[in-house]
């Protein structure tokens, strides 16, 4: 069966520090991968998606970047965090047209 792992689960970082959130998928190959951000009590904002290794599409200009160094690994990064980067970050995967499978999320607090 397929599983998705996302870490760390919680993170408290100072403004200006770097960020790296990791997501890996097991049990499938060539998934489409997604990073979403959710502000408190709000819906999900699509940040990045990838349909293959090294293929990243950015949805919203921002202080973040994403990389896909391996087929089932998706990384969200920042060189210098802003206060506005705080939120709940969700990684998800799908094999195509159909349901998304989400990780448990990473809660980032920037102080």
């Amino acid at each position, binding site marked *: 069966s397929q599983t998705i792992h996302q870490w760390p689960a919680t993170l408290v970082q100072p403004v200006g520090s770097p960020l790296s959130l990791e997501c890996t998928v097991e049990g499938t190959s060539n998934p489409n991968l997604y990073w979403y951000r959710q502000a408190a*009590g709000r819906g999900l904002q*699509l940040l990045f*998606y990838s349909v293959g290794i090294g293929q990243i599409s950015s949805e919203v200009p921002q202080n973040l970047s994403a990389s896909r160094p391996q087929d089932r690994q998706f990384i969200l990064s920042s060189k210098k965090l802003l206060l506005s980067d705080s939120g709940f970050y969700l990684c998800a995967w799908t094999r195509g047209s159909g349901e998304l499978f989400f990780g448990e999320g990473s809660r980032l607090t920037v102080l």
Partner: protein
Amino acid sequence: SQQGEEDPQALSIQEGENATMNCSYKTSINNLQWYRQNSGRGLVHLILIRSNEREKHSGRLRVTLDTSKKSSSLLITASRAADTASYFCATELIQGAQKLVFGQGTRLTINP
């Protein structure tokens, strides 16, 4: 603005009652999906309805889709306290390259 807009933003009902949530969207879609999120957790897929379908059932869930009105509804029958969660609709756009666009969600509270 968001592609999907849920209504109401919050809903509180008694256990055993039915809960209805609505979703409206703006552009043509391949499919519309409903997800559930318990507080502080990831989202869980509930049901998918394709653009050529009008109604779909899964257990206590009933979803309708009206493409002429660009709207969908999610009905949860015989609600239980465990149904307390946030519910989101998500649309896969025809030109969306397999991207899902989520609404703001409905916060459902089932009172025992």
